[in-house]
């Protein structure tokens, strides 16, 4: 009987791994195709698409497409711009939205529920609706930078960052998470003499690992994939992010190998960020899986 159940268990495990493996393959196929194609000259790339060779590093393999991509367009600059815009936006979003959620959940103030409702209501407003008004506002806003006081934010980093440093979805994620934290932890910290800022920094945020990771990943993807807004506000190559850069690159040339190389390059930061956060995510679960 025990033997039978052990066999059953093994069989179930085998089926499970096979199904999961197949699903993983489906997700990995396009990525493998992209990577392999980026190593091949156009003629071979196109002929390989008729067979499984498209997924294998066979034939005339080289990094030429990468070198050509860098020669034709400032790929590095595009990636740098995207990393700066995305990184700063994610960091500011995490701080501002968590602090806002903290005030909504833990501090009692008049009008709290109304303000939270209004913020959550913004979730149903599509960005396209506010894009034009936002563009008009951004084109006239003052900015105190290295060049002194200037007006109009077009063609800058801040125009790609500031409109996105707070959003209803991220605040909602933090609010939901904070509501589940034991209220007595916050009260204990208050009794021990902690100010609201200290409660936020020393008690709430160290326990917020999982929601920080979730919010960071979601925001990163949104920001890194930004297309419409930067297309509207950034004309200069100097501040152009990767997705607008892709369109630009595509117009420059139809060399598929180089496009695949470009795509492979802009995928690297996403994977790196994901892997980094995955570790942080697991670590945070390990340290917070505790009930007081």
């Amino acid at each position, binding site marked *: 009987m025990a033997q039978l159940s052990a066999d059953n268990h093994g069989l179930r495990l085998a089926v499970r791994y096979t199904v999961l493996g197949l699903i993983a393959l489906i997700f990995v196929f396009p990525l493998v195709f992209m990577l392999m194609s980026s190593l091949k000259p156009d003629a071979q790339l196109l002929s390989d698409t008729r067979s499984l060779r498209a997924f294998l590093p066979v034939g005339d393999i080289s990094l030429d497409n990468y070198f050509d991509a860098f020669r034709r367009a400032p790929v590095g600059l595009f990636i740098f711009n995207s990393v700066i815009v995305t990184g700063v936006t994610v960091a500011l979003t995490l701080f501002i939205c968590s602090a806002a959620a903290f005030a909504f959940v833990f501090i009692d103030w008049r009008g709290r529920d109304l303000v939270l409702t209004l913020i959550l209501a913004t979730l149903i407003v599509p960005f396209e609706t506010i894009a034009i008004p936002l563009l008009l506002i951004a084109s006239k806003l003052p900015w105190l930078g290295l060049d002194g006081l200037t007006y109009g934010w077009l063609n800058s980093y801040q125009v790609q960052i500031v409109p996105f440093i707070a959003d209803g979805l991220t605040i909602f994620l933090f609010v939901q998470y904070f509501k589940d934290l*034991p209220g*007595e*932890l916050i*009260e*204990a*910290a*208050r*009794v*021990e*003499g*902690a100010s609201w800022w*200290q409660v936020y920094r*020393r*008690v709430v945020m*160290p*326990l917020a690992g999982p929601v920080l990771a979730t919010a960071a990943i979601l925001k990163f993807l949104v920001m890194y994939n930004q297309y419409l807004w930067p297309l509207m506000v950034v004309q200069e190559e100097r501040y152009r992010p990767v997705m607008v850069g892709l369109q630009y690159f595509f117009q420059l040339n139809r060399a598929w190998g180089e496009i695949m190389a470009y795509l492979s390059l802009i995928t690297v930061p996403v994977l790196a960020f994901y892997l980094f956060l995955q570790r942080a995510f697991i670590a945070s679960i390990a*340290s*917070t*899986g*505790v*009930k*007081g």
Partner: protein
Amino acid sequence: MASVSLKNVRKNYGAADIIKGVDIEIADGEFCVFVGPSGCGKSTLLRMIAGLEDISGGTLSIGDRVVNDLPPKDRSIAMVFQSYAIFPHMTVRENLAFGLTIANAPKAEKDAKVAEAARILQMEHLLERRPSQLSGGQRQRVAIGRAIVRKPGVFLFDEPLSNLDAALRVDMRMELAKLHSDLGATMVYVTHDQVEAMTLADKIVVLSAGTVQQVGSPLELYHRPANLFVAGFIGSPKMNFVEVTIDAVDASAIRISGPAMKAQTLPLTGAGQKAGDILTLGVRPHDFKPMDDGAFTGKVTLVEHLGNETIVNLALVNGQHLIVALDGDTACTVGETLTVGHPPEKAALFDQAGNRITG
């Protein structure tokens, strides 16, 4: 150390009165227990002392300062919560030192105070552990340790033992009593467990529906409950209540009888009673003794042999039940008829408003 004084303290949420004008004086170094059934307002009252709930009216003083509008950190209090509320992302050492870290205390001072608290609570070996690696009792110790480290004027405990198992609760109860005598600190303790209240308190405050029913020492509440509520709440098993009628009354004695009780005479100190009035007689289970000329006769319906005592459920002729606690060696079987009585001075009489009228 500090005294705590509540004068006509009130709390309401909109139209709902939760605390209806409470007056309590807690002396410096006293162990005061708030006890009462769920929803009586005892935890709210404690949280008002802590500064975690606003005070709607009245005056709350700690030491010689009115603290109504002070934030918790400025009240010289430390609080131990029912759920321990120790920080899961910090080690025991960091938890103990939290208040000092917040106050930017020098490292040497922090280390010394943490070591002292750890020594008092015998948890030096746990300092580098995280809460997830501790048992319930150890976590509660950490919570108490965190309170000790700051040397507050007043310790506040909100049902600190109710998450522990029965055996551990007894141990921790004794530790708390020892801690109180060692530190000599003012402690305010909330519980719904009257055994905890009786064993720990210098002074018990019995609360019901947001009002103070009686304040007194444990034995005072036990022997001289001010009203039916206190009489029924303090003591285990509960006091027996029997409705009786006054047959005759004079300056020092009152003669009463009831449908299932022989007439008896009790000493009387109060005034204003007259023949024919209905009263409630209260007798504690432990004050009954089997006696042939006792006032109550009934049929035994349940016997619990606990070793040191025997709890007997006695059904009177009118269907009412009495709980009687007899000697552990008393031979008693279900179905037999038993007559019990009590010393006259051990009985309490309550008027129709529920207030005690006898000495």
